[in-house]
């Protein structure tokens, strides 16, 4: 309690207990990342998730409470970055005749590097502007619902059905 008071004195906007409810509603991503950043110490909670700057977390470090800034991009930022990269990929490689060449483009690899968090955005993109996202989706999800599809359109439908069943669309 002493440490929490100290935090307040240091300029923390609100003490932890006032945010308890909000903290519980956040997903565990920030907390896990906070623990990683602080070397495995336990993270008590996360507050103030901001669309551009990630979040602040209360962590127990060397028997003292402290606030750490977690540089985890929010959903909005991930989506914004995904659309930028997807547009770049489409504009610069959309007319390529060989897909292997499209897949070696840095923007495509940038999307893959963003991890499974982009899967819902890819599925939405696939529904709005069908393109060759099958390989990326397979890599990111480990699933392959388009196996056995003989045409592009069949593969698109297979992935969209899969996305609906998974609750991602």
């Amino acid at each position, binding site marked *: 309690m002493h440490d929490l008071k100290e935090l307040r004195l240091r300029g923390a906007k609100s003490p932890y207990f006032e945010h308890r409810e909000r903290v519980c509603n956040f997903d565990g991503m920030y907390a896990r990342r906070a623990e990683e950043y602080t070397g495995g110490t336990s993270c008590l909670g996360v507050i103030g998730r901001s669309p551009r700057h990630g979040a602040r977390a209360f962590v127990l470090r060397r028997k003292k409470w402290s606030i750490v800034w977690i540089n985890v991009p929010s959903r909005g930022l991930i989506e914004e970055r995904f659309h930028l990269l997807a547009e770049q990929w489409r*504009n*610069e490689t*959309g*007319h*390529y*005749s*060989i*897909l*292997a*060449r499209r897949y070696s483009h840095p923007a495509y690899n940038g999307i893959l590097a963003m991890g499974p968090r982009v899967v819902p955005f890819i599925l939405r993109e696939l529904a709005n502007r*069908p*393109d*060759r996202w*099958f*390989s990326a989706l397979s890599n990111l999800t480990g699933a392959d619902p*388009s196996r056995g*599809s*003989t*045409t*592009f*359109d*069949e*593969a698109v439908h297979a992935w969209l059905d899969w996305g609906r069943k998974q609750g991602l669309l």
Partner: protein
Amino acid sequence: MSRLSFALESRFPKLPAAGYKVESKKDPNYNCVAWSAKRDQTRWWEPGTEPGFYWPEGIPTDYSVETFAAVFQELGYVICDDGRLEDGFEKVALYGIEGWGFAHVSHQLPDGSWASKLGPDEDIEHGSLEALESDDYGSPSVFLKRWVSRLELHQRRYSLRSGRYRRQVKVRIVRKRRRRSV
């Protein structure tokens, strides 16, 4: 369908000046190899296992221009010197890029112009091969030709979904009718 999108046109700096005509809508089901090799509008001809992919048996699975030339040689084409119009022959031009390999293929039309499917985008007709020379497609590096019978040429003209020949036929019919009426 008169022009390509600005973004796509800007990838081919020589194309607007050379002139082109858009002949189809975008279709991601087939690529330029499928279109030039067999007018195949159902499969994407490329080595790989993605949905809709097709690759002839016995052909290597790398992306060199020589490998794609082998696909056409398998279909009866032989290597030739250039893309000049030769009576009775249909030619294809393979574009290559240094450091990558095969990038694109165009096929010659009976009037000497060229037809290209721009990846999953539109089919276009362009007056010269230089029109598509760019950083993305490189330049034509290998030419192949195949003898085409007059019957096949005729069948091909009318089986093409291209509106060009249909328009030509329409014009001829209208002229004939006018002559008869006069």
